[in-house]
Every structure is written in structure tokens, then in C-alpha cells.
């Protein structure tokens, strides 16, 4: 469940935590877009390094590294699939270029994971909900989204309990071949899904008993306001986007394998 640990919000205060979630989200989306428009390794390495100052400023290194470790398996899988498909389609030769492209694809995935991890680590679900509401997203959707985010750690904890309960009945998750291992997770997934559905029904009833949807226009206890730091981040975001698009259009990006 280490992947989920990398998404778990802890209430601490840092310049990054205090940033407006809307701007942070725009920043993450910008990183996302840049990661998609480049398939060369050099810009992706730059993108990979970019969140590091944010992580250090926010003081969430440990959780952030854990989320990266959690993504390592999938990253390895992406790398292998890329290499293999390249190997079989290019007439059974392995070129340095192929390795580089595969590494770039993997890095693209890692960049997406790491930026989302920073975002969720430093943004409280409440702020996220507020941000959605203030951007005129219908409250139903905003609420559904925040609830989903808020229940991720709860579900992760529940999954751990279920795994323990099934292990106590002799289930060995790591036993057997690839297919057997996937099947091993059935006794964990079914109780998890059933309890998630049951929980959502209970939540709906509890909310309705507290007058959910009684008035069209809700009021909020807090309102989000943009501060100086938010404008700085917005400037960085626009800068990154402009540079990336300029480079994409007018500057040929070299591959490392060309220099070898």
C-alpha cells in the first residue's frame, strides 16, 4: 500500500501547503502537458528534477520517496514492455536509441506520479473541495471528488486489515506463478469492494439526514484567496509552458544516444 502513502495528506504548514490548490493544480497540469509533448529523455529528466525543490520546501521527502518506490514496479513494467515491443518490431536488434526511448517513456510515467504525489501530499481534501466549488464546479461533483480523495487512506487501511484477516486464514499472497498471484487477491478485493459500497450507502444516508441538498446555494466557512506565492507559482507555470512550447516548435532536442 506504499503507493497510497504517497498520496496521504498530513496537516503541516509550509509555503507549499499554503499555496492555492487551484494554482497548484494548474502547475501539475502544465507539467503533465509538457511531459506529454516531449518524448526525448533530456527534457523529461529536467521535468523529473523540477518538483524536488517543492518537495524539500514542503518537507514531505519521506512520503514522496515512498510513493516513488511504490511506482517503481509499474515503471519497471513500462520499461520492459517498451524495450520488448521495440526489440520485436525492429527485427530483433537492441539499439541504444531504443533503450533511451523506453527510459524516456518510463520517466514520463514517473514524472506524472511524482507531480501528482506532491500535489496530494500538500493539498488538504477540504481545500481541494473549496477550489472546485470556487471554480463553479457543481457542488455534487466537488463533494464526490473530495470524498473520494478523503477515503483513499481509509480504504488503504481497510485493505491492510483484510489482507491480515485472510493471511490469518492461511492465504499466502506471494505464492504461486503470475496468474495464481493475481487470483490470490480475489479474497482481498471482494471484501474491500463490498465494504466500500456499503460505506457509500451509509454515507449517503448520513448526509441526507443532515439536510444534504436542502438549499440550492450553500455557504462556506472559508474562502480561498490568491496570495503573493500563488502569483509566483503561476508565473513559473506560465514560464515553463512558454519555454517548453518554444523548444518543442523551434529547437531540435538532441538524444543522448547521438553523442555515444
Amino acid at each position, binding site marked *: 500500500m506504499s503507493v497510497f502513502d504517497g498520496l496521504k495528506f498530513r496537516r503541516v504548514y509550509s509555503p507549499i501547503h499554503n499555496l492555492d490548490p487551484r494554482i497548484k493544480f494548474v502547475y501539475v497540469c502544465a507539467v503533465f502537458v509538457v511531459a506529454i509533448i516531449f518524448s526525448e529523455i533530456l527534457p523529461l529528466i529536467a521535468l523529473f528534477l523540477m518538483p524536488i525543490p517543492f518537495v524539500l520546501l514542503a518537507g514531505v521527502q519521506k512520503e514522496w520517496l515512498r510513493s516513488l518506490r511504490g511506482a517503481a514496479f509499474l515503471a519497471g513494467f513500462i520499461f520492459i514492455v517498451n524495450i520488448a515491443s521495440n526489440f520485436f518490431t525492429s527485427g530483433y536488434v537492441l539499439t541504444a536509441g531504443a533503450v533511451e526511448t523506453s527510459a524516456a517513456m518510463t520517466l514520463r510515467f514517473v514524472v506524472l506520479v511524482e507531480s501528482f504525489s506532491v500535489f496530494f501530499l500538500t493539498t488538504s481534501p477540504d481545500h481541494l473541495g473549496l477550489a472546485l466549488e470556487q471554480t463553479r464546479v457543481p457542488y455534487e461533483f466537488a463533494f464526490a471528488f473530495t470524498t473520494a480523495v478523503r477515503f483513499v487512506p481509509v480504504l488503504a487501511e481497510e485493505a491492510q486489515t483484510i489482507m*491480515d484477516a485472510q*493471511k490469518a*486464514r*492461511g492465504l*499466502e499472497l506471494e505464492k504461486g506463478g503470475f496468474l495464481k498471484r493475481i487470483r490470490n487477491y480475489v479474497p482481498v478485493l471482494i471484501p474491500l469492494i463490498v465494504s466500500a459500497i456499503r460505506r457509500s450507502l451509509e454515507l449517503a444516508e448520513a448526509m441526507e439526514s443532515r439536510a444534504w441538498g436542502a438549499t440550492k446555494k450553500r455557504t462556506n466557512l472559508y474562502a480561498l484567496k490568491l496570495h503573493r506565492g500563488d502569483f509566483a507559482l503561476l508565473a513559473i507555470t506560465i514560464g515553463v509552458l512558454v519555454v517548453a512550447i518554444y523548444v518543442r516548435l523551434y529547437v531540435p532536442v538532441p538524444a543522448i544516444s547521438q553523442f555515444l
Partner: protein
Amino acid sequence: MIEVENVHFRYPNGVEALKGVSLVIKNGEFVAIMGQNGAGKTTLVKHFNGLLKPSEGVVRVNGVETTKTSVAALSRNAGFVFQNPDHQLFSETVEEEISFALKNFGFEAETIEKRITWALNLLGLAQYRKTSPFLLSGGERKRVALASVLAWNPETLILDEPTIGQDYQQKEKLRQFIVQMQTQGKTVVIVTHDVEFVAECNPRVLLMKEGAVVADGEGREILTDPEVLVQSSIVLPQIAQIFLKLAPLGLPKNVIDVYEAKEIVLKALEKRRK
């Protein structure tokens, strides 16, 4: 036999849930572990079948250190029934649910059949054999979970909060069932908040507070000692409360059993009449 030697346990998030626990549970003993929420009760019993391994110290089950073997191997001897049955039910029928562990432990098909029938009869679930566990009531699901563990007949039975969500009659059945396990020489460990239930069973009581054992002894001694109980925010069982108030009349203080209480009161009344 379960031996716990100076065990410390820290969760990955840094919380130290056990701070130097030492105890021995002999074969055939009946132990109730009590204490506040977060006192470390469940953390402690999860060490008994290796679900958790001590950060410091040693846990030995039948002489084998839990760090040197698997949860599956330890579970063969120590059946652990979790608090919430919904955390383990996943099969289409009750029968399949119970066979799950038996298959994991590699029992033969014939034996599995017999064991299922035996466990279902023991817990009064025979009529639900082909029913989906999800269609049963809360109390019934709890019994299915218990049956699914009992089926492999473990030497030690660990029950986490077995009385939660059970009506009084079910609790009484559970008590009789534990007594029955006892006569078969099984070790039973329960984790519970339910003072009245413990008072009726009168087991050995282990009182925990903030990751340490603060009292260990006979139920009738610990559950009648208000000074010990107040540390763990446990209220005395009702019978003990009555006898505490009656103590100035010369009645004994350490009474928790209904039948014993009746005898004592009757005797005292007779004395007065004379």
C-alpha cells in the same frame, strides 16, 4: 504456549504501540485482554500469529520464534478471528467461505467436507450452508467468520472483540462455546471492552494501558479493584459495584459471578433473619 519477552512494536508511522510487554500464556488458558482504545490490545494479539513481528524483543509460539516462520504456518496453530466479519467474507456460499482456509492448509477434499459440517453444526449455521454470507445478518456473519477459523481446529483461538454487535443470547452462546473449547484443552485469548462478558467468564485478565500491561491476574481480583480499573478507564461490572457498596455490611468485595452473588446474598439474608 505463547511467550512474549520484552516486546516493543512501532508502526511504520512511528507510533510505538507496545512498550516492553512480557507475558506467558500457557496451553489451555483462557485470557481476556482488556484496556482502552489504542492501548495496544489488538497489536499485541497480532503478534501471536505473526501478523506483526516485534520491533524489539521476542515472541515464541510453542518454542518457535515468530520471526523465523510464516503467518500461514503460525495460523495453523493459532486461529485469529477478526473483529469485523466483513473484512474476510468473500465467497458465494457459506460452505465455500469455510473451505477457504482448509484448502489453503492443504486438507483433503473428504476431510474438508467433514470439517465444514462439524463447524456449521457447532455454531448453529447448518441451514445456511448454501446461502451467500452477504445475505446473513450481522451476528450470523460473525459466526460464519468464527466457523471459518474453527474449521481447521487450531490449538489456540484468538477472538478480537467477539461480543460486539451480538445480542445477549448470542453472547451467552459464545460464553458456553468458549467453555466448551476450554474443556477440550484449547487456549482462548479474547480482546474485549465488554466487562460484563468477562465477569461472567471469569478468565485470567490482562489489563493494558498505553502499550504496557498494567495488571495481570484472575478476573475476580482485577475486575473488583476500582483503583486498577480506573487507570484503564474501565467501569466495574455491575455485580462488583453492588458488592463494593455492600462491603461495609461485611460482605466480600471480590464477587463478579451472578450465581456466587446470589449464594452470598441469600446466606447473608438468612443470617439476619435468625
